[in-house]
């Protein structure tokens, strides 16, 4: 018990200051993907739609519909299409409307 006390004093306050100040550990969090419309083709889009385990991606014509609410940040879409998909770094994702979490990304890549 005294050892624990002394160690704690040495380490100092570890409580995060969030939300008053940003938290450094947030950089290591897994986050939903961000897409590069220029690299997205219909084929790439179909490939990443098929690989998503959580049905967060769907293609409607030339629009890639991404549901950030359903995404589990597993990284499979980034592994399947590393040029088109990267990590967004966004983790402050709370929304008051469910529809605000569903985003449309244009498929603007060239013909395969």
């Amino acid at each position: 018990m005294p050892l624990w006390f002394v160690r704690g004093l040495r380490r100092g306050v570890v409580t995060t200051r969030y939300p008053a100040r940003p938290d450094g550990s947030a950089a290591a969090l897994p986050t939903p993907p961000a897409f590069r419309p220029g690299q997205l083709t219909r084929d790439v889009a179909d490939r990443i739609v098929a690989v998503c385990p959580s049905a967060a991606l769907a293609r409607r014509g030339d629009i890639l519909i991404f549901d950030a609410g359903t995404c589990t940040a597993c990284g499979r879409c980034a592994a399947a299409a590393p040029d088109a998909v990267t990590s967004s770094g966004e983790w402050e994702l709370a929304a008051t409307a469910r529809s605000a979490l569903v985003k449309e990304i244009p498929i603007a890549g060239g013909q395969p």
Partner: protein
Amino acid sequence: MNPASDEAQASRRLQEQIADQFGRSLHIRTLDTGSCAVCEQEIRLLSAPHYDLNRLGFFFTPAPRHADLLLVTGPMVRAFDAAARKTFEAMPGPKVVVATGACALGGVYPKDPFVHGNVGEVLPVDVWIPGCPPSPLALLHGLSVAVGRLAERTPGLTFIAGGDG
């Protein structure tokens, strides 16, 4: 208590009311509707010294009668419908419902004879917190949004790289 997208003004007024009433002290009741319990572990971490939700005036309570906010995880297993409804009805108004975790938002488990898939089918959800699991920081962000301390950022996000995230 359920601000639909067209009633933005009413929801803003409600948010102000909520911020006013829950500003300093919010009592949270967690509800597991069939989750894998990892979301629960993250929620439990909120009480740990690193995140310490008590410093923000948030407290956990087991009694719905004493609760202001219902934090729901899990894909809303159909067998749990009645209990979830009872818990919600046992909370005195004003009350806020927060659904958290990919399961509760409709992911991972599609609708089938045993599972609703989406908490919104049974309870009127006010704030949705995605994540699998949502980190304690994301939970803190979501709870602060729920009480009106922080503004939500999601409407402004595009998830387009090279743009605004």
